């Protein structure tokens, strides 16, 4: 480095460079700053910093800072958060240490909440459609209207239906909403008189629930005491990438792998090398759709080698003899090895390990359950827990507790409402389905298209987006175009919203009141508040206030059903949570944690005729009223694929990366730019295929390829990847948007658009993994 002319001596130069090591403030000659103001609204004077460049911002001036406790809603986990608000702008999402579900810890999605709030492509006012044409590439011709006009029009339509005694012709679509909003949505539907509540959950989560229901009578997502377990056998469940409650799974991962003497062992069975597989001790690639077979083969080993928990099985289960007979006679590991592609050695070894490492859990995810016989795969895997005694024990399957909200008065059900709810619901091909299953979401598109059992006249969607999420998503485009009048209630204009006649700009979760609780996972109950961190942006209104407003306009019994429940959003939350925690405490702390979880509740948790865990499902027997005993036992049936193997040799698999924001929108750069962590790329998804398969097809990494099923095709970028079964092509969900905004539109591909439409027989949920495809260079 040439010596500078203005430096007198090298000693002075050395001194000068050393002086750079002093604190920034001393160097800049800044006076001591005022301390940090923590109290709400406390004004602090910021230090004046001498600047060589003219600041683009005045650094003088009053700065207000406050922290607001609230909770997140970027996925169903609903973590408690604290939001730092500076000068009225939310600038940081942080932990609420009082939350115990994840010990306060947050997943990355919570921080993306800031981008959800300040999304520049949000709907800024109620919008009315002026173009009567509805379609994927059709400009709706939105014009802004007042709330009065929008709600007035909606009320006319709703009133009209009731006047004609057709309340059932209202469909209510539910995406991801706060529990409090969900309660209000359901109450409205009940008071109004429609049985047609169509939820996201019923799209893909029902088979998991019905599997558990067959065994213990609880139609719920399974919960696991992750904190104390010593062995996780995951069947298609990406525990640290997408399973809920995710933040809890992440915190407990750290705990059970490194923070206690017993390191939990993790084995992941998945056709795809998921993030969880990457972190696990063993990845077992399996032929898609054969998880049930593998589970039964493991049961075979556990039973034949007498490694099962005899105490639990003998005292607290029923139907073990029939189960044992079926498993031993039909599910030998050697036979199942051929079916699953997993060697008999591995089956025997892992089964023995699972049974002898206590406590252990068998965790099933969508990869195992979203199949035509997914309920039985779910049942088969769930039974492994009972076999090893992991039911309601520390480190095993547990039963989620919930806060006891104040019970609302019965709705005022008038004659119209009664008649409406007595009608069959949409998607009502319920032959052979478990009665407790909800409306089959994906069947509703066909119901609307066929007008079967009756045409839908009006629909209201709350943060729903079936046009992206449902298999055969194109049918939803057709169905929504056919719907005479659709109201979309959400902060942004997602794909489903483009078919709306009226868009009502709802608040994001950082601007509204609500209560939420932890989904199955923690065991103990935890209730979190939602309170506005900032003033409502634009001309938005909270969903709660929209519903109160609609109910009031309708008057009569509908309005009456909302009397005495708080009158508005804040009032409603206060009213409902009053029995759980005093309001001021709840507002200040943000979290209520329920009693410590109680294990061994064998006298209470089995909602079955025998009052025990049932390997032979008497609940199912009551539904079937037939003597087909196999249908009451966990069993495997080869999955029927859509598309013939010769034309479509590969199986399409989809998955949700962690940064898939589950509100139907993906217009969030922080999530988009780092979307695919295993591939180190963002702003897109890829057609992930095995390197040998790709080589055989002449496809190189980065080539543009067509992925074609018998239902459609999409063009995407190939990602040649070692972490995938040779017969499988994987495409991540969450991309391929054609609405939503500048950072989501046109990025990547939506695999749901080429998936065939099929259902799990028992629960009516959609299948996601039994579509065959072919891949070729574009």
């Amino acid at each position, binding site marked *: *480095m040439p010596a500078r002319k203005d430096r007198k001596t090298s000693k002075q130069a050395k001194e000068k*460079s050393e002086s*750079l*090591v002093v604190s*920034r403030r001393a160097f*800049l000659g800044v006076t001591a*700053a005022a*301390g*940090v103001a923590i109290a709400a609204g406390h004004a602090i004077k910021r*230090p004046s*910093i001498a600047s*060589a*460049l003219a*600041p*683009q*911002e005045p*650094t003088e001036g009053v700065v207000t800072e406050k922290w607001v406790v609230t909770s997140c809603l970027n996925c169903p986990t609903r973590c408690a958060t604290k939001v*730092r608000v*500076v000068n009225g702008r939310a*600038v*940081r999402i*942080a*932990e609420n240490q009082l939350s115990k579900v*994840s010990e306060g*810890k*947050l*997943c*990355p999605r919570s*921080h993306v909440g*800031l*981008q959800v709030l*300040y999304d520049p492509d949000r709907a800024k006012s109620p919008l009315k459609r002026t173009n009567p044409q509805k379609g994927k590439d059709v400009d709706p011709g939105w014009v802004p209207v007042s709330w009065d006009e929008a709600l007035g029009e909606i009320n006319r339509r709703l009133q009209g239906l009731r006047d004609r005694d057709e309340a059932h012709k209202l469909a209510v679509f539910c995406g991801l909403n706060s529990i409090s909003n969900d309660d209000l949505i359901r109450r409205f539907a009940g008071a109004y008189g429609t049985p047609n509540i169509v939820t996201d959950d019923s799209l893909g989560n029902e088979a998991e629930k019905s599997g558990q229901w067959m065994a213990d009578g609880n139609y719920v997502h399974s919960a696991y005491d992750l904190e104390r377990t010593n062995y996780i056998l995951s069947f298609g469940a990406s525990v*640290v990438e997408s399973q809920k409650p995710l*933040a809890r799974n*992440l*915190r407990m*991962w*750290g705990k059970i792998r*490194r*923070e206690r003497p017993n390191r939990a062992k993790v084995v992941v069975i998945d056709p795809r*090398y998921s*993030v969880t597989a*990457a*972190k696990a001790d063993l990845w077992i690639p399996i032929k898609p759709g054969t998880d049930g077979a593998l589970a039964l083969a493991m049961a075979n080993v556990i039973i034949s080698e007498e490694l099962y928990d005899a105490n639990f099985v003998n005292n607290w289960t029923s139907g073990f003899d029939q189960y044992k007979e079926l498993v031993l006679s039909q599910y030998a590991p050697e036979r199942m090895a051929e079916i699953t592609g997993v060697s008999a050695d591995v089956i025997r070894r892992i089964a023995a390990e699972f049974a002898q490492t206590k406590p252990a859990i068998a965790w099933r995810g969508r990869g195992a359950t979203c199949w035509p016989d997914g309920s039985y795969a779910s049942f088969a895997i769930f039974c492994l827990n009972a076999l090893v005694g992991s039911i309601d024990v520390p480190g095993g399957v547990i039963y989620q507790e919930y806060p006891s909200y104040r019970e609302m008065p019965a709705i005022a059900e008038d004659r119209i409402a009664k008649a409406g709810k007595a009608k069959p619901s949409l998607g009502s091909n319920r032959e052979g389905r478990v009665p407790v299953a909800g409306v089959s979401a994906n069947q509703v598109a066909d119901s609307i298209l066929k007008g079967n059992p009756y045409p839908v006249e009006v629909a209201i969607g709350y943060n729903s987006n079936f046009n992206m999420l449902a298999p055969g998503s194109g049918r939803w485009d057709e169905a929504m175009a056919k719907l005479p009048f659709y109201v979309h209630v959400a902060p942004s204009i997602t794909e489903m919203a483009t078919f709306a006649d009226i868009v009502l700009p709802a608040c994001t979760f950082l601007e509204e009141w609500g209560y939420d609780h932890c989904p199955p996972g923690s065991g103990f109950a935890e209730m979190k508040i939602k309170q506005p961190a900032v003033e409502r942006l634009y001309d938005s209104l909270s969903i709660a206030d929209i519903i109160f407003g609609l109910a009031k306009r309708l008057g009569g019994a509908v309005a009456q059903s909302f009397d005495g429940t708080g009158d508005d959003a804040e009032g409603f939350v206060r009213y409902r949570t009053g029995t759980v925690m005093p309001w001021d405490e709840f507002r200040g702390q943000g979290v209520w944690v329920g009693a410590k979880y109680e294990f061994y509740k064998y006298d209470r948790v089995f909602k079955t005729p025998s009052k025990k865990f049932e390997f032979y499902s008497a609940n199912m027997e009551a539904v079937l009223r037939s003597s087909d005993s196999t249908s009451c036992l966990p069993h495997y049936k080869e999955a029927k694929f859509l598309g013939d193997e010769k034309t479509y040799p590969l199986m399409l698999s989809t998955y949700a990366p*962690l*940064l898939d924001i589950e509100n139907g929108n993906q217009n969030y*750069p*922080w999530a988009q*730019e*780092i979307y695919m*962590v*295993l591939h180190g*790329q963002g*702003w*897109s998804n890829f057609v992930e295929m*095995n*390197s040998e398969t790709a080589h055989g097809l002449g496809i190189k990494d980065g080539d543009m390829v067509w992925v074609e099923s018998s239902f459609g095709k999409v063009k995407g970028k190939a990602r040649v990847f*070692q972490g*995938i079964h040779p017969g499988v092509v994987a495409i991540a969900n969450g991309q391929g948007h054609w609405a939503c905004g500048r950072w989501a539109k046109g*990025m990547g591909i939506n695999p749901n658009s080429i998936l065939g439409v099929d259902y799990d027989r028992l629960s009516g949920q959609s299948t996601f993994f039994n579509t065959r495809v072919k891949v070729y260079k574009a």
Partner: protein
Amino acid sequence: MARWGMVIDLDKCTGCQACTIACKEENNVPFGSPYENIRRLAPYWNKVIAASEGEYPSLNIEMIPMPCMHCDNPPCVQVCPAKATYLREDGIVVQNFRRCIGCKYCIAACPYGVRNHNYKEQEEHPYNRPDSPPDRSVIGPWPFPHRTHGVVEKCTFCFHRIDEGIKEGKRIGIDVVPACVEACPTEARVFGDLKDPNSHVSRLLATRGSFVLREKMGTRPKVHYLHK
């Protein structure tokens, strides 16, 4: 005088990338565009990289979060013609936007690729918070009034938090940590004084096998990784 360092447990890390996003949130680091991402022009003060080895079905993908390594023998400091980047007494390698002339010599010199050049005007960046400068720490304001066009920036170990924390008598590494450490849900990241044998970082390094990246380059990074 403390010597700040970080330990990242690659076993606990699940590659969730909360650190990457929390850092952007804390320091108002602008996000990039798809084009910038492909060209590696988008700025990241912390980035999680995936290193893959092996073949189906026996492969391993390691997810490695990478902040600035705050090397004890930093190549960036040695090459900077403007003395804009320097090693503080407490071990943090600091970037002074105002001295930086944007020559990018430091970017070339850094073996870890953790430095970023800001090639846009403030108005051209799609900031998450376009109306405010990088100034939203839990403790203390960011000393630089705005992000300057044409200079290089990088992870600072959230020194604005540390300096303020020291002034307030808080325990660094316990009460006050960088944003990435605070955000990590698995608690894979630990921050503290490497010279204090009782600090969490020192204890981890004493009891677990650890390594640094590119040790052979002699940079002596102060970000250590614990083996899986």
